[in-house]
C-alpha cells in the first residue's frame, strides 16, 4: 500500500501539522513515511502545502506531481491541485471560501464543512483535526489509535493537554465527510 497525499491551504490552517500527525500515525503502524513541505516566505500567511507519503515499501520521490489524495482548504490550492489528483483518486475540500468548486468526473470528491463546524464548536484550532477525521472516514489508511499515538509523538509534552480536544475534532470529522459525486 502506498498513499500519496497533498494537503494544501493557507499558512495558519494547520496544514503542516496535520501532515505531521498523519506521518507519525504511519510510523506507529510501521510504515515508511515522508513529509515534504513547501517552505519559504509563503509560510507566513500565504499558501502552505505539504506532501505526505505513507507506504509499506521504501519511498522513492518525496516530491510528486500526481497524488492519490488532495486535501484542499482554499481556492488557490484548488486551482493548483484539482488537476493533480490521479484518475480514480480522492479530492477532499472545505467549501468555506471556495468560489470555484471542483468539476472533475474521474475522481471521488468529498466536502467537509470543517471551518464552520470548528466555529460552531467554539474552537477554530481543531479545524485541521476535523479535516483529518473526514479524510480517515473516506480512506481509513491509519487506525484512530495510531493517530492518537501520532499526536502524542508530534506534540511537545507541554501541549499534551490539548490531545483530548484534538481527538474530539478527529471524531467529529469522522462523522462528517459528505460525498459530492
Amino acid at each position, binding site marked *: 500500500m502506498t498513499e500519496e497525499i497533498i494537503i494544501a491551504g493557507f499558512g495558519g490552517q494547520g496544514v503542516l501539522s496535520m501532515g505531521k500527525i498523519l*506521518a507519525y500515525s504511519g510510523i506507529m503502524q510501521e510504515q515508511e513515511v*515522508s*513529509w515534504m513541505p513547501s517552505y*519559504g516566505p509563503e509560510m507566513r500567511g500565504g499558501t502552505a502545502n505539504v506532501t505526505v507519503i505513507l507506504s509499506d515499501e521504501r519511498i522513492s*520521490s*518525496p*516530491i*510528486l506531481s500526481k497524488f492519490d489524495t488532495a486535501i484542499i482548504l482554499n481556492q488557490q490550492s484548488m486551482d493548483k491541485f484539482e488537476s493533480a489528483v490521479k484518475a480514480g483518486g480522492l479530492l477532499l475540500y472545505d467549501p468555506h471560501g471556495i468560489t470555484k468548486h471542483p468539476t472533475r468526473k474521474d475522481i471521488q470528491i468529498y466536502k467537509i464543512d470543517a471551518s464552520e463546524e470548528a466555529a460552531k464548536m467554539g474552537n477554530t484550532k481543531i479545524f485541521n483535526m476535523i479535516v483529518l477525521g473526514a479524510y480517515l472516514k473516506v480512506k481509513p489508511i491509519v487506525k484512530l489509535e495510531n493517530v492518537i499515538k501520532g499526536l502524542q509523538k508530534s506534540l511537545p509534552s507541554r501541549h499534551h493537554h490539548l490531545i483530548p480536544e484534538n481527538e474530539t475534532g478527529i471524531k467529529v470529522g469522522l462523522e462528517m465527510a459528505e460525498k459530492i459525486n
Partner: protein
Amino acid sequence: MKEYKLMKGNEAIAEAAIRAGADGYFGYPITPQSEVLEYLMAQKPHERTGMVVLQAESEIAAINMVYGAACTGKKVMTSSSSPGISLKQEGISYMAGSELPCVILNVIRGGPGLGTIQPSQGDYFQAVKGGGHGDYKLFVLAPSSVQEMADFAKLGFELAFKYRNPVLILADGIIGQMMEKVQFFDQQPRITDEEIIKKYPWTTTGKTPNRERNIITSLYLEAIVEEQHNRKLQEKFKRMEEDLMFEKIECDDADYILIAYGSVARICQKSMELARANGIKAGLLRPITLYPFPSKQISGLAGKVKGILTVEMNAGQMVEDVKLAVMGKTPVAFHGRMGGMIPSPEEIVSALKNKLIGG
C-alpha cells in the same frame, strides 16, 4: 527495536552530531538550514554531553572557530547554505591545507548570488572540485534521506579524522526540510583530552617537555616544500577512494541508466519505476560519495547500456564528471532544473524518451 522519530533532515543531523560525540558546533543562521542551530540550542547540548554550541557573528567567523577547535583535536562541525558556504571557503581551504578534520554541512539553495531559498544542487562544482583557493579536495557525502543525514554525521567525523581532512555533507533544501522516520545510533562518548594527546599527537594542546612544539599552518614559503606538501595532499585525496560509496538500483538488465545524487536520486527512482511501467528498462546509479566519484562503476555500466541520463538541479555540473567517466562509450544526456525548481518524476521520463530513446 529502536524507536523511530519523525524529523527534518536538518534536525536529524543535529541530533546525530550530539550523539556522535561532537565537541563543538559553530554556525550562523541561513535558510534552509537554520533548524540545525535551532535544534542544537533547544537540546542544551552543554547539559547533555558538554558539547559547545555557539552562534557566530558570521559564517567566516564560524568556520574559523571550527578551524581553531579542530587544531586541538576536537570533533567540530559547522553548517550553512550556499551563500554562507561561499563565505566559508577561505577557512575551508586553510583547513584542507593544514590537514584538519571537521564536518561541514551545505544545505544547498538556488543561486547565483542571493538566489532563492528553494532547493538546488548548484554547488556541486564548488563541493567536489575544491571550492576555495588552491589544489585540494573535500570528502563529499551526498545524503538522499533523513536517515542518511543522521548516519553521515557520524560517518563524516570518522572519515574526517581518518583522512585529517574536512568532510562536506552536500544536502539540499529538500533533504534539510523534509521529515522522514529516522533511527539513531546510541550516544557515543566524547573524546577525552588524554585520548586526543595519545591518538592525535599533531594537535596544538600545549607544548610539554616531552615533545617539540606543534605548529599548525598551511604556509610553506619555499616552493619546493610547498610542492612536497601538495604531493602529499594529492596522494591522500587519491587514497580516499577506499571509502567510495554508491548505490545501484535495477542496473543489471537496464538499457538506460539514470545518474543522480541526493534528493534528485529519490525523484529519479520514481521516474525509473514509471519508465519500467512503460516498458523502458531503466536503472539508477546514485553516487553517495561525490568525491571520491564512482567513475569506474559508471565506466563499467557505460559499455553495457544504450544511454545515460544525468539529472541534476543545476545547469549540468556532475554530468561533466559522468562524461569523463563514460569517455564516449555511450550517449550521455542531461536533464536539469535551476533556480529552486524541482524536476518531476514524469518530466524526467519525458527527458529520457526525448533525449535518448526517441532521438
